[in-house]
């Protein structure tokens, strides 16, 4: 198979003098191609060689090559399809908004105790590090790709990290009466202009808000998702997240994140840009150091 691809490559690109001579010998990649190969290799346990990458790029017919081309961000402001990813995700409520979150005295004390314990070598573990769903809004701060999908009356958020799955009900104004508590809560949403407003409640109290601060079961989270237009089109999805938990904070407060559109990643092998993340098998949040210490990232 590989040889057939290589042969096809030679025929297709016959005008180029230094194309594939034999398997494993390839022309030198341009800097842009090398950068793309590096990007494509991210997250792959076995890196593609330049030969394999060129075969993938050049092999197949024209329709196939076109199929792997990145798609631009949709022009419709209510169209959230495509791949979005927060770069270098992080959340620290002590530093958020330059002033810290409005902790109640008790929550401030709890948060500081955890920070001190960690400074003295304690390994902190939380829901996400044990492969439970991350909770909301914590899920919004993970640096992994997200896809939206649409059903009649519902919008799905499909997260690569820990295959977290959120379901936003557009066909009702509130959660049913018997709704149980859960890690990701119960979400209802509606459109205000081109902003998707999502209100989530019925959380359990097992997920942290960042890495040290907690919340209770009275937590209500309001997310406002809006595409932001730049000269390149709708390149960012901006989410304003309002956290309201009277048992842990003295007033509601809002944090903001920008998720860039990642058309480049959509061609990553796998589920249309979402690489399988099996937390249960291989927890990427946990790292064991050479001296045997477990670090929860």
């Amino acid at each position, binding site marked *: 198979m590989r040889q057939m691809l290589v042969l096809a490559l030679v025929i297709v690109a016959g005008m180029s003098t230094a194309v594939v001579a034999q398997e494993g010998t390839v022309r030198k990649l341009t800097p842009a191609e090398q950068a793309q190969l590096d990007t494509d290799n991210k997250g792959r346990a076995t890196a593609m060689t330049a030969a394999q990458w060129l075969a993938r790029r050049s092999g197949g017919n024209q329709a196939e090559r076109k199929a792997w081309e990145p798609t631009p961000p949709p022009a419709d402001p209510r169209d959230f399809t495509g791949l979005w990813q927060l770069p270098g995700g992080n959340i620290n409520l002590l530093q958020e908004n330059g002033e810290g979150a409005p902790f109640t005295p008790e929550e401030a004390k709890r948060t500081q105790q955890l920070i001190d314990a960690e400074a003295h070598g304690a390994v902190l573990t939380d829901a996400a590090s044990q492969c*439970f769903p991350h909770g909301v809004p914590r899920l919004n701060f993970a640096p992994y790709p997200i896809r939206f999908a649409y059903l009649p009356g519902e919008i799905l958020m*499909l997260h690569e990290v820990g*295959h977290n799955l959120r379901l936003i009900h557009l066909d009702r104004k509130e959660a049913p009466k018997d709704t149980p508590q859960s890690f*990701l809560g119960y979400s209802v949403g509606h459109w205000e202009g081109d902003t998707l407003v999502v209100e989530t409640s019925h959380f359990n109290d097992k997920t942290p808000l960042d890495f040290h601060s907690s919340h209770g079961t009275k937590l209500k989270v309001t997310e406002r998702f809006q595409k932001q237009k730049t000269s390149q089109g709708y390149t960012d999805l901006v989410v304003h997240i309002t956290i309201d938990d009277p048992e842990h904070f003295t007033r509601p407060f809002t944090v903001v994140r920008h998720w860039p559109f990642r058309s480049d990643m959509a061609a990553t092998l796998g589920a*249309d840009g979402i690489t399988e993340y099996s937390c249960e098998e291989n927890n990427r949040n946990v790292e064991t150091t050479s001296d045997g210490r477990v670090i929860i990232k």
Partner: protein
Amino acid sequence: MKFVFKPVLLAVTAVLLAGGVSAADSDSWAHLPAAQRPDPGTPDYTGKWAMPTPIRALKTTDGKEPPLLPAAKAKYAANQAALKTNPKSDPIANCWIQGVPRIIYASYPMLIAQDKDRVNLVYETNHTFRIVSLRRPLPKWDDDLDPHWLGYSAGHWDGKTLVIDTIGQHDQSWLDYSGLPHSEKLRVQERYTLDGPDRINGELTLTDPETFSQPWSTRFTLVRQPGYDLKENVCVRDHKM
């Protein structure tokens, strides 16, 4: 909290059938952004579905044992023996992601969210989803694939039938609850055909030259679950919560 197929849902289905309301023919993609709507006439599999008859042990379409090669037959027998003494020898007892096709007949409902370029298959069991591109072909360099629990899938239309091909799966998963094994060379073809608005006739073809002496097929049925609200379903082994 096992999902139980409720007779009341059967009743709803019967009314819909009698009324002649066909979601499949309505061509209504109003819930999708305009640019993501499939071409007119594309069959619509969007909705909530469940398998009324759970399948524990896969058999061929004509009810026979799968055509296992001798080594695979021995492995199947060993898996079955292990299950008898230790139910946790089932890979899903570790909460690992169920492979294809096993995820299809987990005892929980599923959602299908379809658009122009892809079919999203969302399973309640352990919040698992598959995003199947209708635009991008299967990768060609099979030898270079890192195996995944759900493998690598690509879909296409064969007339009104949705066809999904999957390769590149871990060999640690079982094909069914009875312990039927497979190798990393497994290729699964799923064929989904609407039979009226509220029923999908499914067909699986399994090809695995290291496990089976020849490709073989089996069938399953999915029935629409109007109004079903997918639950948070979490499976975690060995935790401190």
